[in-house]
């Protein structure tokens, strides 16, 4: 499975360690909430609301360099808008992978 990385943030930060730490702190704080909100909406059979969550999470997917994950998330977002949830398992696997990576980032 495709693995997340911090290449984009490292390049953006350059030598700015303060920014890098700040960004990772925000990521660690924001991502679990977005993931939870998505799962709640999915479990409560609210696919349109879940599609908005996927849209928002897509940015983090791309920031973490998950190119294939981004493409799959885009398809899933479209499907959710039509009420189709068949890609849920695949997307949740991407989220779990990101979650594990984010939790283990050391600044």
């Amino acid at each position, binding site marked *: 499975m495709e693995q997340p990385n911090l290449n984009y943030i490292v390049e953006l930060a350059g030598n700015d360690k303060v920014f890098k730490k700040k960004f990772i702190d925000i*990521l660690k704080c924001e991502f679990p909430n977005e993931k939870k909100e998505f799962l709640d909406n999915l479990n409560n059979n609210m696919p349109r609301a879940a599609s908005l969550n996927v849209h928002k999470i897509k940015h983090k997917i791309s920031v973490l360099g998950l190119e294939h994950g981004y493409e799959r998330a885009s398809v899933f977002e479209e499907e959710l808008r039509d009420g189709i949830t068949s890609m849920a398992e695949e997307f949740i696997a991407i989220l779990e992978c990101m979650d594990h990576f984010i939790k283990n980032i050391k600044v």
Partner: protein
Amino acid sequence: MNCIIIDDEATARAIVAQLCSSVDDLQVVGEFDSAIEGIKFLNHQDIDLVFLDIHMPGFSGIDFVQTLQNAPKIVLTTSDPNFAIEAYEYESVIDYLVKPITTERFKKAVKKVRNSIRTIHPGNSDQGEQENRKNDLYINIDRRLIKIEMPSIQVIEAKGDYIEIKTDDTVHRVHTTLKKIREKLPEQQFLQIHRSFIINFDRIVDIEDNSVLIEKQVIPISRSNRPELMRRLNLL
């Protein structure tokens, strides 16, 4: 140049703020997680540029663009490139950045904004050049800025979501409102005489009770606008 960042996602705001720090003479003076908060700020603060996310819950970036009067320059930021065409229909939207935004692409967008501001406020030009540019109006058609010399304008007519600018040579169709273009025109030369028409005062041929002849076109005068028209005439 100062700017604000509007995005409901904190990581996205942090990235744009970091990108701003890589550009000389660009200060971030506010960050907001909703378009409504951004509008409240703009109501009492002059801002040159807004970095605006499109997808936000409740009040979207597009709602924001449509709501603002005298909008500052706007650079849209989004994960969805499909909105690009719609976004360019708005006069204040200068560029469109797809996330994740690269430093190079970001700097290009800021450069476009600076060029756009210089077109309207030629602050670094000499006096003669400034006077010339005051006579020019730039309109955005199909992502091209087309220059119109103000004296060549005969009539501007509102047509739904568009306006038609009739000049000596042609007619330009632009997606904007009469109110917006009126703010760009010299007050002493142009006058709104009807809710759908602005005329170039210098191009009046004659005036009847309820109409004005501009070149060969008869333009109605509304009752409410007639007193201002009469006041401006040099009556014998």
